[in-house]
């Protein structure tokens, strides 16, 4: 009889442990959100969005330049990463049954796995060293590299979900292949592709490491694409490791704004996406 009781106890213990580990993971989540919201909300004010950072020792000021800088960096990286990612994905899905496509898929996986700080070094050697200056362009190049594989693989997955009957119907009507891809296949897969793009943007919005020695940061308004530019995550980092209390408060405010930005973008994906794709989206976010 004893063995049955023992087995029952072990069963209860292990199931309890599984439940407990789920609870345990929620603890840091709640703590992080609690801190960011409680400390951030007292420091966010109108000035935060409209003023430049103040010099050391003076109170007040904001991060308006960093918010604008982050938006510029995101826009610039989208400019080159979206066409490359989407059309690369089109190639992989529509023409990609050869060795060449396998090599591209492998490269996308490699790019996806590279630590973001290494991508920063790469952008530094390609842009900053020849130009002899930190610049917005080099930052956008680094962020774009992070976006490309996500968008490419998301596009490929989504195009593969488009039923073949649709393609055949279009071709049977005498539409050319390129026209078929653009107006039938891409159009059908658009919500999924948009989700991939939004997730990529959400991911780069919070990236700091690749910007450390590319965009570099700046305490003034953006002066040009070949000049150093401020970014919200960079500013948070610099303020967080500084010794001034006032800057720490600003860092929390920045963290609150950054998290809201990232979640707003992630939330957008819930509206563009159909429920049946959702499972795929979750997997993509992980990679």
């Amino acid at each position, binding site marked *: 009889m004893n063995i049955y009781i023992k087995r029952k106890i072990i069963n209860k213990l292990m199931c309890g*442990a599984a439940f407990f580990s789920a609870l345990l993971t929620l603890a840091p989540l709640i703590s992080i959100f609690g801190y960011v919201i409680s400390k951030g909300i007292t420091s966010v004010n109108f000035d935060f969005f409209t003023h430049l950072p103040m010099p050391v020792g003076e109170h007040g000021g904001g991060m308006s330049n960093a918010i604008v800088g982050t938006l510029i960096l995101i826009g610039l990286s989208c400019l080159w990463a979206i066409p490359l990612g989407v059309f690369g994905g089109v190639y992989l899905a529509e023409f990609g049954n050869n060795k060449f496509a396998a090599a591209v898929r492998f490269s996308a996986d490699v790019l996806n796995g590279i*630590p973001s700080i290494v991508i920063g070094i790469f952008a530094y050697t390609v842009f900053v060293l020849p130009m002899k200056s930190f610049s917005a362009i080099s930052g956008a190049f680094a962020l774009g590299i992070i976006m*490309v594989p996500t968008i490419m693989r998301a596009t490929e997955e989504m195009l593969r979900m488009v039923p073949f009957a649709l393609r055949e119907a279009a071709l049977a009507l005498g539409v050319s292949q390129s026209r078929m891809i653009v107006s039938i296949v891409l159009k059908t897969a658009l919500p999924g592709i948009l989700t991939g793009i939004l997730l990529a943007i959400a991911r780069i919005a*919070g990236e700091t490491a690749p910007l450390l020695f590319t965009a570099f940061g700046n305490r003034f308004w953006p002066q040009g694409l070949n000049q150093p530019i401020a970014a919200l995550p960079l500013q948070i980092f610099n303020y967080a490791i500084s010794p001034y209390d006032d800057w720490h408060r600003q860092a929390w405010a920045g*963290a609150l704004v950054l*998290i809201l930005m990232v979640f707003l973008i992630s939330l957008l994906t819930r509206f563009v996406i159909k429920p049946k794709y959702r499972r795929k989206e979750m997997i993509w976010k992980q990679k």
Partner: protein
Amino acid sequence: MKIKSADLWFKKAAAILALSAAALVILLVCSMAYYALPAIRKFGLHFLHTSTWDPVKEIFGALPFIYGTVISSALALLMALPVSLGIAVYLAELAPCCLREPLSFLIELLAAIPSVVYGLWGIFFLAPFLRETVQPFLFRYFGFLPLFQGEFYGVGMLSAAIILSIMIIPTISSISREVFLTVPSAQREAALALGATRWETIRLAVLGYARSGVLGAVILGLGRALGETMAVTMVIGNRPEISGSLFAPAYTMASVIANEFSEATTDLYLSALIEIGFILFFVTLIINIAARALIWRVSAKIKAK
């Protein structure tokens, strides 16, 4: 005729854009190798096993950083693995249906938090908490171990490992959960029919079946931990020393690049830092390939059935 040529151009354009992804990887390897070459030539293999890091005299050995990266990631894995497996088991097997989606959404949220925010939380909450509560406790009861000796700084190896483990839990748990969900229910039913308890069913039918997929998830998590920069840089204390104590500050490969890259004044200094990045690149590359091969094997096995 016109249509045919338009199609051809379209295909060519798409191929070129696809190709540029491959070109980026090649360019990355070439340009980093080129700039790392001076350091590789000067120090050779000594770079990997000497621990002097002296920018003034231009002597560079990366051992403390390699040590810091390896130990912090290994510790993080050690802490994250049981917890992630617990979550995955709970979400895939035990949780009531109405809890599954919200809970997994909350755990995925952890993955969406930018790492600089983790760092901020680490500096102002985790490090003081460790310094005032956890480290004195560990010292009092386990102080005889060399692991838990020394000053209580708060920042150091322990806090870096804890932050890293929080950051990789969503990766490991969500992939493991996906793998568990692919286990055929016939397996579970067979175990239950033989009179196994719920836990025994999970251990024998689910965990056994999903082993290689879980291993893949773990390796993917490891890859993420090795390359994580900002959060670790903010809490590890940044001191290039090898110490047996978990309380002591340390330094990782990613954080030395983050901290010193824009201050690297001489070419050799820069080259040494780029070489560290290059090593990091190759290690994560191998790890990712291994993880993908494992996960791919699992999905191939499922397709074959």
